[in-house]
């Protein structure tokens, strides 16, 4: 019962989300291959070969795959998938964009956002913004799953690198062209793999005040996130949104600053180990999930924390 994991990468580095996905794959079978589709992506293939649990690395390195457009990749994956019982991808915007399109090409109903593998055909996944957890069973001949990264540890390294095989299939669809990308670069840890996250909400009141959170984050080695309201107000870019429809995180420590705790926000962070809430409203719902609550003006609290850390 072999498994194919689709690598998420930017042609240079293998994304951490792939490591969580490999851990989920290893719970299903010992026979896990990974496919790297991209352009000039040798480094990614080499990194993938070293991940614990990987048996073979399949590489499709063509200019047509530079931006990993779903139209090209799904057509390619449709043929590769013939050999496998399971196709897994991380439940990130990359995997969510690609896997359902791929699955439909071989008449498979995919299963999104798996948080637990119960047995070979049984999985758990959150529904209704995490207000309920569904157990689902599927006897389809092929199973396509996206894996919620926060629910699985990252896979480690193996002592002997897996063999890397290159293939030359070139599928270039004319349906879709890449125009441009505006990808945030930051020296801070990635939200999806950070141990500590500080997130700001509408209470931050401006883009400028997020620099206060950045300073605090740097002292803690933390990533900085935000609520939808803070993103909608233009204080910070969309890639910082945490929640039902943004990123799902589960760090060791999550500090929510000026965030009320709407269910859609909680859906993205309530599995964090320790939650701290700083809010001037003592009745804010965020306090119901917080291990430590501080009822205070956030600007005062941030300043005091900065001095103490």
């Amino acid at each position, binding site marked *: 019962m072999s498994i194919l994991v689709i690598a998420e990468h930017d042609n240079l580095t293998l994304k951490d989300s792939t490591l969580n996905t490999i851990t989920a794959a290893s719970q299903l079978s010992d026979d896990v291959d990974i496919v790297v589709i991209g352009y000039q992506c040798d480094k990614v293939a080499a990194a993938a070969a070293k991940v614990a649990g990987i048996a073979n690395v399949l590489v499709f390195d063509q200019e047509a795959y530079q931006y990993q*457009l*779903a*139209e090209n990749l799904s057509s390619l994956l449709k043929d590769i998938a013939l050999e496998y019982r399971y196709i897994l991808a991380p439940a990130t*915007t*990359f995997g*969510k*964009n690609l896997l*359902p399109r791929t*699955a*439909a090409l071989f008449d*498979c*109903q*995919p*299963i*999104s956002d798996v948080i637990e593998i119960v047995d070979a055909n*049984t999985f758990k996944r959150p*529904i*209704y*913004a995490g*207000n*309920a*957890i*569904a*157990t*689902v*069973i599927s006897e*389809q001949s092929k199973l396509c799953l996206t894996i919620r990264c926060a629910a699985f540890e990252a896979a480690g390294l193996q002592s002997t690198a897996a063999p890397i095989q290159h293939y030359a299939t070139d599928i270039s*669809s004319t*349906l*879709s*062209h*890449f125009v441009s*990308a*505006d*990808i945030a670069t930051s020296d801070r840890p990635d939200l999806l793999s950070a141990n*500590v996250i500080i997130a700001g909400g509408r209470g931050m009141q401006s883009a400028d005040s997020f620099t206060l959170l950045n300073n605090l984050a740097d002292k803690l080695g933390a990533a900085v996130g935000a609520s939808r309201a803070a*993103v*909608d107000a233009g204080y910070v*870019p*969309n*890639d910082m949104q945490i929640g*039902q*429809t943004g990123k799902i995180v589960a760090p*060791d420590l999550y500090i929510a600053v000026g965030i009320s705790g709407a*269910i*859609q926000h909680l859906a993205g962070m*309530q599995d964090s*180990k*320790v*939650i*701290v809430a700083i809010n001037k409203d003592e009745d804010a719902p965020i*306090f*119901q999930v917080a*291990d*430590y*609550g*501080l009822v*205070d003006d956030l600007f005062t609290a941030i300043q005091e*924390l900065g001095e*103490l850390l």
Partner: protein
Amino acid sequence: MKILVAIKRVVDYNVKVRPTSDGKSVDIANTKKSINPFCEIAVEEAIRLKEAELATEVVVVSVGPDAVQEQLRTAMALGADRAIQVKTEADLEPLAIGKALKAVIEREDPGLVMLGKQSIDGDNNQTGQILAALTNMPQGTFASHVAIADKRVVVTREVDGGLQTLSLSLPAIITTDLRLNEPRYASLPNIMKAKRKPLFVIDLNEFGIDSEPRVVTTAVESPAQRQPGIKVANAAELVDKLKNEAKVIT
């Protein structure tokens, strides 16, 4: 150009649902229902394209029981020109919804198809991508900006790393993200007018598609509840607790 918008009737986002007492499903009886918020954004975008004279007609479609007519009427009150109900009592999966929508596309021949990126009940985030595969159309998922020019549509997508912009040939599938627009409210005169707009009902069986469930939900449970924590008096106590009690910072 005709725009087809697929809308889903869901439990309103303000409702906190619970599993039923038999632990088999979610208790949604007597809860408020609305248009899925992402679909509302899709309807709004289509109407704006029509107002900008880039589209000539906006058709909304929903797959479900007669109750979905309420959401179809709401979409027409917002500005859609007509509606299609693909009638079924069954709770279909995204693959089957995709097949039903494909059949509608074959009849309607739209230049652009818009869906929400995700339904807030099932949280699947699949239907648009599945429909794009079944119709061999390009896909612009998680759109935060849409521009039509020269027989193509340029879509800016919200991705984990930031933003990505793609140019798609038409017809294309677009799924909407939160920041694409802010939907309007329906005015009373428009609600009245919507009652007279055409709503066409077609039985799912007429499409002859395979809509058998492939994935079966066997149990639904509440998530693990967090234990209520404590309130600290000030920042100093917070730092002390994090260092010495929770041991999450050094």
